[in-house]
């Protein structure tokens, strides 16, 4: 399928926001404004943005952890202020300050997160079962990484999704690095792709350039069409690069992989900008204007998040927050 000009411009704008907000998050972590941690998705923003931007309003999302769901939230049209307020430990955060780094955005089909990578592959199966039995054409976007894809849950999840023809699009952000271990040291698949694993369940697998937001958007759009038509799940593997260390503020400790610029010449934002400029959809001036808009948006996020009252835990409050009534 071909993206319309409007879609391309929208993707570029969302990608720009994702990239600049990840940079902002890295600054905030170093300043101590972000209380827990930040796992930067610098270099990988095009995957979540491309995938999440092409969903339908009532689709469900399980996001990949890197970037803490920022790209996915932005692709869904969600409000990044609430993500940052949450990271700042504010009561006005998307989880009232009680999670510290998870996204809760039900209107975007995001109902929470959990940091045991692989557990989301099960929850996504539940989302898929829910979508299928409701019969209203909903689909599920299930983000995961190349590390997640070696956990046992992948087998269970792919198997169940294929067995029951669940409308799930798996979006694997393969950056070739699992914390500090190269993917080649973790995965036995002969090609290095997850294709063989996925296709063994009869699930179509597609490999796409994760640095190209338009390619990701097209691949996920095609996959969603397949899933919504009742043909079952699809696995989109986006090859990408992690520009920063595993966790912001810690040195990049990768040991056995060569320490050259890992794909730094394939920055997703530059690729998207060059493409749209060459197609006449953008000019340098327009890009500058967009950068200024995003800068203003981030300033507003900053003001909102810093000014907001802290989440102050009390015993009574925490006891009350343990159970739903």
């Amino acid at each position, binding site marked *: 399928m071909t993206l319309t000009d409007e879609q391309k411009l929208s993707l570029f704008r969302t990608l720009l926001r994702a990239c600049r907000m990840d940079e902002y998050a890295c600054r905030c972590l170093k300043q101590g404004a972000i209380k827990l941690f930040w796992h930067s998705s610098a270099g990988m923003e095009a995957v979540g943005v491309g995938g999440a931007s092409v969903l339908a309003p009532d689709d469900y999302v399980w996001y990949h952890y890197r970037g803490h769901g920022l790209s996915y939230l932005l692709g869904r049209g969600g409000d990044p202020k609430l993500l940052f307020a949450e990271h700042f430990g504010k009561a006005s955060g998307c989880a009232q300050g009680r999670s510290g780094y998870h996204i809760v955005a*039900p209107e975007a089909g995001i109902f*929470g997160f959990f940091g045991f990578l692989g557990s989301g592959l*099960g929850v996504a199966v*539940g989302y898929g079962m829910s979508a299928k*039995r409701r019969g209203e054409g909903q689909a599920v976007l299930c983000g995961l990484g190349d590390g997640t894809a070696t956990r046992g*849950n992948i087998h*269970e999840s792919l198997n169940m999704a294929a067995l029951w023809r669940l409308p799930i699009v798996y979006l694997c952000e393969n950056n070739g690095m699992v914390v500090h271990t190269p993917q080649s040291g973790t995965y036995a698949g002969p090609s290095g792709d997850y294709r063989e694993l996925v296709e063994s369940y009869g699930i179509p697998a597609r490999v796409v350039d994760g640095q190209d937001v338009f390619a990701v958007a097209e691949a996920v759009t095609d996959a969603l069409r397949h899933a919504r038509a009742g043909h079952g799940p699809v696995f989109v593997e986006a090859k990408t690069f992690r520009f920063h260390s595993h966790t912001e503020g810690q040195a990049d400790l990768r040991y056995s992989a060569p320490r050259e610029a890992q794909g730094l010449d394939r920055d997703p934002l530059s690729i998207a900008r060059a493409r749209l400029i060459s197609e006449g959809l953008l000019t340098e001036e327009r890009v500058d204007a967009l950068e200024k808009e995003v800068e203003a948006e981030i300033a507003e996020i900053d003001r909102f998040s810093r000014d907001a009252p802290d989440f102050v835990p009390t015993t009574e409050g925490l006891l009350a927050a343990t159970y739903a009534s």
Partner: protein
Amino acid sequence: MPTKNIIQAIRDATRLEMARDPKTLLIGQSVQGSLFGTGAGLVTEFGPERVIDTPLAESTTAGAAIGLALTGYRPILEHIASFSMASFEELFLLAPSWQMLHDQAVPLTTLLVGGGGSGSPDHSIVPLGIGLQCAGLKIVVPSNAYDAKGLLATAIADPNPVLYMAHIHTLADRTEVPDERYTIPFGQAKIVRPGEDVTVVTSSFGVKLAMRAAEAVAEDISVEVIDLRTIEPLDLPTVLASVTKTRRAVVVDQDINRGGLAAELAAVISDACFETLLAPVRRIGRLPVPVPGGLAGDLFIHPNVEQVVDAIRATTIVAAIPGRRG
């Protein structure tokens, strides 16, 4: 009134909930054929879309149940009790934490059939202490069929994750159980035998042991037996009122004696009733060793009537301060 056993009571409650709410689903391995009979025939009535056989994949099945619960459904996830450990992260970390972390309800009922017994840890875990330590997980332990039906209805209607366990040695006993739907609230213990001299607090299969022990000592000791019915929420007021009256307490748990319900209750009772207790609180639970398979489990490892009798007697043999005996 008809008499039913716990299996039939569970099936009754499940069927009634599924009939009244099309969002209620039964999910697990071989639930269509119904290994224990807890869902016998339900697939014929409600269809395989609502009574769902899953592959052998506990972890992802439990995760899927959470996903369904988050998006408008009410899943009943059935496990042989021990095998719930194969989905530990989902049942004991994700589900109980979800409300605190995300303010999103997870109305998931995990139906554990057949905890306890002698099948070694792969068949005979009683995951109650573990459940207590999670926080955020309600825990229901019916001792009889009447309670089993009412408590399960409450569990399914509860917007929170509920762990519901029917101990293997309670499954066959029959009591009178009405055909219609009824609920029993959580956090309401029942005094199943009133007494004056010592309180035995217990649940699940421990109720039968306690009642037998109470009979055995009835000539010289008047034993009050409390059936907790739910251990989270726990009906502490009833327990403390009883111990304040009797001034002696024995706690009988089906789980390991160390670090679980028995230890927790003993500590809470000792704290609250320190001034009035005439003897230390006794606790009885499983020996703190992995459960061996074969009959060594039932005959030696798990609590038995003799232990309860001994504990009751031990609380009455006290160097009482003259004048303090009520």
